[in-house]
């Protein structure tokens, strides 16, 4: 959004970033090369993705006030994918310098809305930034020209799901996130409420602990459990009726440019008898498999129960431990504390951004071919070639039974019909949206 253009030189090793002129920060200063460099240096230090990308960076230099040269030690076609993510924000140099390795004291960006105030657990208020430097291209979700029609947007945390939909019906809220799918019919009957079933959104599945400390480091054991699973009832338990989920082996959704069905021969086999044989062949001796689950996210518990049942039908013994999310998060970082847990990952992003691919993430997938493929994806500048590598990576992910991916699950959102121009994006945003009374 902040670039006039980027010149890719030396076969993807050098990116010359031509900044737009006259772009103002929320504090009134103009955005210049020094700000970009300070922001990216901070990103390189603090963000996990920033570290990955900057491990390849050789130089980040200012050519003039509106030109920055980003040089890599090897071709890095993936750079734009990383730099468009929200952790690579551009902030004034003064703020980046004030908080080089910690939380920012002030929130100053260049976007069409700026932060007015944040009262923790009460609300966050954004107001229109009058000096926003709009692009000339037509609007396109997060890209293109953005116009802020609203004077103020207030984000209010409301923990009770029922109260979120009640407030939407009574016109206390204009927009509500994560509504109960059980309320779908009731909400659909409301003439002044519009519903959004958001897909692509996240995909959900069970991660295996592949570290040496867990019996799940045995690939054949993982494959046996994967073979036992019948995906549909699991998806239904997690997300309700068919409108709210879809099956498939893909990491990135069919709507995305990174879709592939590679690995489908391992998906949805629903064969408990074969799984039983495979368990025996893998040397499974009936040791309880430690499954950590939480009721804080209903899909986590409900999907877990159905999968547990299916695995038990194949002869596995599951020790299903229910805990709160905070406990689960801390327990899953201990290699000796668990064997399986369920979570979700965005299905609308580039697969290289998935947190579960690096071997440091709980699940600890160590595989040299995976590393080679990830490097190839990062380097490749040709989208078609990149997709080939992605397909191979996805195939490997399945053949190693790294995870039992079950389905994509939708989230249900609702808004008052007077909200126009919203266009049901996956990540909501209110650029170019307005009220029509």
């Amino acid at each position, binding site marked *: 959004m902040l670039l006039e253009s980027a010149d890719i030189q030396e076969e993807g090793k050098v990116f010359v970033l031509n900044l737009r002129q006259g772009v103002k920060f929320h504090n009134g200063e103009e955005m210049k090369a020094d700000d970009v460099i300070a922001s990216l240096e901070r990103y390189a230090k603090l963000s996990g993705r920033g570290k990955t990308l900057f491990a390849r960076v050789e130089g980040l230099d200012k050519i003039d006030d509106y030109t920055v040269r980003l040089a890599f030690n090897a071709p890095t076609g993936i750079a734009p994918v990383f730099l468009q993510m929200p952790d690579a924000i551009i902030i004034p140099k003064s703020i980046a310098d004030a908080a080089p390795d910690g939380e920012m004291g002030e929130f100053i960006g260049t976007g069409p809305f700026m932060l007015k105030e944040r009262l923790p657990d009460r609300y966050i208020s954004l107001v229109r930034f009058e000096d926003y430097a709009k692009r000339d291209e037509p609007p396109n979700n997060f890209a293109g020209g953005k116009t802020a029609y609203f004077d103020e947007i207030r984000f209010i945390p409301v923990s009770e799901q029922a*109260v979120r939909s009640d407030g939407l019906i009574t016109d206390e809220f204009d927009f509500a996130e994560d509504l109960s799918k059980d309320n779908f019919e009731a909400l659909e009957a409301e003439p002044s409420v519009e519903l959004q079933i958001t897909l692509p959104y996240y995909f959900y599945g069970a991660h295996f602990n592949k570290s040496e400390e867990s019996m799940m480091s045995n690939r054949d054991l993982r494959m046996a459990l994967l073979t036992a699973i019948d995906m549909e009832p699991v998806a239904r338990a997690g997300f309700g009726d068919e409108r709210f989920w879809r099956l498939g082996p893909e990491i990135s959704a069919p709507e995305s440019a990174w879709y592939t069905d590679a690995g489908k021969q391992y998906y949805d086999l629903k064969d408990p008898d074969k799984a039983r044989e495979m368990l025996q062949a893998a040397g499974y001796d009936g040791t309880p498999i430690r499954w950590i689950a939480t009721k804080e996210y209903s899909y986590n518990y409900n999907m877990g129960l159905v999968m547990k049942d299916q695995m038990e039908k194949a002869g596995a013994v599951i020790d299903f431990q229910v805990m709160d999310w905070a406990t689960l998060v801390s327990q899953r970082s201990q290699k000796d504390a668990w064997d399986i847990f369920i979570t979700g990952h965005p299905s609308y992003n580039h697969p290289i951004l998935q947190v579960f691919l690096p071997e440091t993430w709980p699940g600890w997938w160590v595989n040299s071919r995976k590393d080679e493929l990830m490097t190839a994806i990062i380097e490749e500048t040709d989208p078609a070639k990149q997709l080939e590598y992605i397909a191979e990576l996805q195939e490997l992910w399945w053949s190693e039974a790294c995870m039992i991916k079950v389905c994509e699950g939708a989230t249900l959102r609702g808004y008052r019909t007077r909200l126009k121009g919203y266009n049901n994006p996956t990540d909501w945003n209110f650029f170019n949206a307005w009220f029509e009374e």
Partner: protein
Amino acid sequence: MTRYIIRRLLLAIPVMLLVAVTTFLLLHMTPGDPVSVLLGPDATVEQIDRMREALGLNDPVHVQLLNWFRNLAHGDLGESIFLDKPVTEAIAERAQPTLLLTFLASLVAICVGLPFGVISAVRRGSTIDIGAMLVAMVGISMPTFWLGLNLIFIFGVKLRWLPVQGYQPLSEGLWTSLRYLIMPALTLGAAQGALLARMTRSMMLEVLHEDYVRTARAKGVSERRVILRHALRNAFIPLVTVIGLTFAVLISGAVVTEQVFGIPGAGQLLIRAVNRRDFPLIQGIVLIVALLYVIINLIVDLIYVFLDPRIHYS
């Protein structure tokens, strides 16, 4: 009297110490780590470790406990890990909604509980008695959040009389603030009102059979005066204990109600603190609630003196 109050306050110190140590140890025995919640799922091991070190969470538990006590002795409850501000400040910001809600809920409980209890006792066996006690039974048995969600559905969604959630401080005007608190106060006060009605009824029934009530009636004192002056005043002593406890119970009960109605009070603060394992904040809130219990009990004991001249503390 003054000496009594001082002695009671001194006695509160060991109680508070016990509460403090128990809370601290229970929390640190609970699995779950504020840092992994704070840094999110993408955090690396070294990021987590650096933050734990900065927050002093890597010290042995007894060192952490001693540090906390040292600060406590200076009246410092520490810093909230998530809100990035002193615990005392965080609690003070959230005190108004909770105290207001508790006060209104107590008012609901007393205004409903006392009259219905007295009437039921006086008209024992009548339709009013049976009806009131049936409602009280239902009131006690109903889970708070269920009652809350139903009230929201009826008065918020169907009738549109009241806002379904949220809070406006008193500074926005009394009625504006009250509109947001009516349903939460009813929700929170209902069960305690029902309990109070049942207690009042049985206390009154006991007292109405006393000799002095018969004597008063024999003297020709009006029935109204018999009930209000002779019977109710004597029944009141145990009831004051119940009302005092009600207030204390309501403060802790506000946790659920605030969650349902989205009121940014101390109860909601506590729930979020627990979910995020914000140790200093949880400890601070629990300590302050315990302190409130101690103070309320003391006040109840002091009220006895005014109600019953026979009671002396020395």
